């Protein structure tokens, strides 16, 4: 049995990685400890969300599959922040936990070069710092040229409920007991992380009249740039909203010592995510808050579990019963699954290159939660990049490294490898300094060509992109050259929006540039012969011209610094003038470029100056 690439783990990172490798024509094995859990959503049922929705579009633009699978199977979809600026709008779908994995398996099994197998991987075949394959728990060896680890939360996973700790993965699955120890032996630094999940409640035991309805959008939306909407607006399933009560808080306070996190277990090392506190945390840390918001979300069309977002806990079951029953509409609720916390091993991500190949073992790539992130989208995009880069390496080509000004994916990977992590990493809009460039609406314009260059996007898709780009340019010219007379009739239309413009003639471009004029208003004033998606691009570019120009100017500076490479063999101990903290950090991260070095906290501008002078001296390079 010889494969070119083996992907270990079939979660969101693994599926995307395996797809990319096989799509690029490499003989690939996807190995999972349980075939039933391919593309599983063990926690919340969302695909997308703020910033994450943009990542899903980026994955699609680069030729990945998450967006398409979500489009074909979701229960409802929304554009978040639609009332805010274009830079922060982001799609979020309510995934179907049955249909999504099913569609994913269908996509994967249709690939010629991909084989999917069950097996527990407990070691790697390693020779002279190079990975040559994997070793299963029964000792079976499988060789490959590249290995991608996407083991999620399964490394030494412990489920924590009340005062019990059990060596189990999500859903009580078998975890990998030895792989993380082996990685440690090979030289990796391992970090213990923790996350949690709330209860699942039987749908028919909830009184929804006491909750607020949260429907999907009334407008057809898709993640993918290639698909037409394949759902009906009126058939979307709603979510609901409820709140904790004073009684809930009372129960939590009275039972705090029974929570794993508050003393019931005294051996917790894992660091939990700051953005995802348990309900215990929220009640304790925000004691002045009278209530906390909870979302009740359907998990599937095919079964009745409702996910209780916002109520994640590690209380023992009997307390969870009490807590849930104190919620409005949940007086008689039936808990199908109790909430729990899960502790697991991850590798410290500064041990990775920007390609996601590890610095410690050649031909080994890692992606997803093993790298310290959380979230399906964060995992999937890393899987895609690891898959593409493992393939490119086989092909003898340079890796794909997306820059911070090119994609949220670039922001995420750069953050991981440059700054490391303290708690499980989640993408947030505020992490991106170029969010005005990294929009949901232009993910294809940013990334499709790159996807094409690396062999993930086909000719048809590329042609559609080229066509779109030329239409945008045409439309821009059209608006610049077409004049409009604001006559009485048009003034009346404007009056409906409380806008007054005197009787003048102006170009459509100048009209659109006025702060009060929106896409909707202009469509009532003039008949512009271009699609909404085309007009939207032109509109955004005109409306926020100043901001966008500024962002591109900033990006240019970054690009320049990204070009200043630091040789692999640099010995920071030889640069005597560098401050010792900076030296230590540089040794740890070993940045590939000056730009990356600047982003390391603890490295000051003077250290960068000294470094660039040293580089010129030693390597004769211009910084």
């Amino acid at each position: 049995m010889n494969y070119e690439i083996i992907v270990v783990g079939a979660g969101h990172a693994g599926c995307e990685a395996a797809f990319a490798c096989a799509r690029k024509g490499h003989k690939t094995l996807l190995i999972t400890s349980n075939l039933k859990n391919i593309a599983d959503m063990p926690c919340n049922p969302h695909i997308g969300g703020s910033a994450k929705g943009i990542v899903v579009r980026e994955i699609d633009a680069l030729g990945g599959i998450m967006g398409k699978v979500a489009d074909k199977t979701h229960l409802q979809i929304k554009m978040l922040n639609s009332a805010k600026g274009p830079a922060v709008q982001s799609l979020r779908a309510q995934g179907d936990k049955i249909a999504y994995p099913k569609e994913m398996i269908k996509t994967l099994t249709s690939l010629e070069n991909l084989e999917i197998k069950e097996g527990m991987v407990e070691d790697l075949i390693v020779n002279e710092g190079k990975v040559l394959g994997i070793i299963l728990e029964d000792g079976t060896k499988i060789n490959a040229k590249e290995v991608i680890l996407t083991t999620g939360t399964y490394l030494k996973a412990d489920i924590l409920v009340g005062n019990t700790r059990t060596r189990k993965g999500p859903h009580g699955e078998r975890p990998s007991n030895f792989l993380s120890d082996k990685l440690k032996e090979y030289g990796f630094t391992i970090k213990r992380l923790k996350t949690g999940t709330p209860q699942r409640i039987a749908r028919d035991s909830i009184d929804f009249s006491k909750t607020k309805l949260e429907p999907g959008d009334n407008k057809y939306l898709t993640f993918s740039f290639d698909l037409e909407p394949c759902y009906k607006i009126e058939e979307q399933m709603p979510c609901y909203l409820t709140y904790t009560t004073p009684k809930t808080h009372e129960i939590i306070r009275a039972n705090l010592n029974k929570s794993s996190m508050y003393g019931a277990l005294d051996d917790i090392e894992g660091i939990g995510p700051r953005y995802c506190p348990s309900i215990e945390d929220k009640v304790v840390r925000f004691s002045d808050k009278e209530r906390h918001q909870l979302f009740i979300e359907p998990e599937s069309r095919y079964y009745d579990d409702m996910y209780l977002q916002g109520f994640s806990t590690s209380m023992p079951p009997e307390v969870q019963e009490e807590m849930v029953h104190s919620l409005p509409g949940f007086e008689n609720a039936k808990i199908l699954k109790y909430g729990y916390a899960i502790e697991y091993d991850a590798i410290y991500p500064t041990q990775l290159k920007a390609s996601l190949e590890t610095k410690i073992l050649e031909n080994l790539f890692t992606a997803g939660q093993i790298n310290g992130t959380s979230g399906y989208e964060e995992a999937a995009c890393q899987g895609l990049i690891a898959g593409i880069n493992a393939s490119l390496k086989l092909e003898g080509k340079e890796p794909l490294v997306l820059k911070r000004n090119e994609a949220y994916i670039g922001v995420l990977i750069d953050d991981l490898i440059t700054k490391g992590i303290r708690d499980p990493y989640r993408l947030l809009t505020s992490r991106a300094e170029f969010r005005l460039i990294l929009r949901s609406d232009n993910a294809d314009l940013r990334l499709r060509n790159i996807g094409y260059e690396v062999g993930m996007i086909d000719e048809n898709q590329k042609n559609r992109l080229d066509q779109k780009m030329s239409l945008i340019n045409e439309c821009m010219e059209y608006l610049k050259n077409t004049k409009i007379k604001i006559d009485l009739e048009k003034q009346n239309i404007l009056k409906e929006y409380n806008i007054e413009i005197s009787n003048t003639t102006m170009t459509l471009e100048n009209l659109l540039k006025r702060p009060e004029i929106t896409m909707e208003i202009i469509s009532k004033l003039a008949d512009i012969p271009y699609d909404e998606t085309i007009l939207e691009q032109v509109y955004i570019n005109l409306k926020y011209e100043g901001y966008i120009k500024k962002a591109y100017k900033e990006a240019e500076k970054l690009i320049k610094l990204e070009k200043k490479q630091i040789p692999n063999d640099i010995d920071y101990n030889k640069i005597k003038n560098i401050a010792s903290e900076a030296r230590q950090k540089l040794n740890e991260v070993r940045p590939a470029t000056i730009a990356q070095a600047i982003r390391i906290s603890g490295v000051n501008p003077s250290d960068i100056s000294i470094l660039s002078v040293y580089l010129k001296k030693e390597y004769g390079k211009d910084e």
Partner: protein
Amino acid sequence: MEDTICAIATGGGVGAVSIIKVSGNDAISIVNSIFKGKDLTKVASHTINYGFIVDKDEIIDEVLVSVMKAPKTFTREDVVEINTHGGYAATNKVLETLLLNGCRLAEPGEFTKRAFLNGRIDLLEAEAVMNIIDSKTDIQRKMALNQISGKTSNLINDLRSDMVEIISNINVNIDYPEYDDVDIITNEILLPKITNLKNRIEEILKESENGKLIKDGIKTSIIGRPNVGKSSLLNALLEEDKAIVTDIAGTTRDIVEGNIVLNGILLNIIDTAGIRATDNKIEAIGVEKSLKLMDESDLVLFMLNNNETLTDDIKELLTKVKDKKYLIIINKIDLDRKLDIDYLKQENIVEISVKENIGIDDLKNKIIELFNIEDINMKDPTYLNNTKSITILKNCLKRVADIEQSVKDNLPIDMLEMDIKSIWEELGKINGSTYEEELLDEMFKRFCLGK
């Protein structure tokens, strides 16, 4: 495309002439934009040009500007050198104007670094360059720690902390759009907050006492009856003959200025016409001016003649000086004492003889004591750093005003957030407290979010 950088090239002291060096792609065009004289973009390379540095219509200084085009320059970039004449305050004002018009203050050793990177300096000198950067940075690091007074620093910290609240609130609105228990910041809510920020930055600029002291120097006037030795004292302090000294009473009709630096703090000394009732019209204007100047001064050096008795007008003036910071200087102690010293009952007395060079150092020490200059000096060691802070504040003020307009223009809140954040970062440079995770930490500390 490198930034265009600038710095005062002459040492920390005050010479008659200071040189400001500007280097980078935009060096010529930036200087040209604040220069009144020939069009510098059109003059030949390596020429010296006479003119004025202006801030809009206001003339800051009369200057000579050397224009040197790449590559035959020290850095191998376009270099402009501005020779200023107006002393410390004017030089710094020129520097400030450059910073406000697109230059960046050079980092320690940056000119040399550029010279090296552009191949102007020999490779063997690389080590030396790194040493320069290192040692200068060390000094700067120490400076940065105590860069501004505690009061100003606190004001800026408060300002930034309020900005963090706004920023993290908007970020929560963006990243958790469906959380209804977090306030939604709208443009209407934002507007008064922005106006408040603007007012406070203005206030900090105005009120940062020490900053002002260092920026404008201590405005010092020498007051006294004619021929008491005011001009001689000024000269003694300046160690040059800038004021005209004669023994005819009332020679100094106009005002003579001079600057000295005590422990790095600038004393802007003004010698006034002697105060006495007079029928001479020209001198009367001088007297009026003197009283006015005394009123505007940070420090009054009130000069008395050891060899004369106190007159009634002087006694009256002594009551006027009480509200100011002042020193009573008794000159001519080499002569017989006719002065009624007991009448003075004041503490801040220095006895000197300018003629015999007695007590001048005493006087300097008294001034240092009076203004706590040693203290200030520690907190705020260079003017340069402060020019930087003030420029940052001024830039921020301009940008906050822009944001105010954008809020009114109804720009999306997330775009405004980017502007606010960039000001927050900018302000952080003043007390060196921008760190990346700060905002995220704040966000999760202040707001209750999660699954």
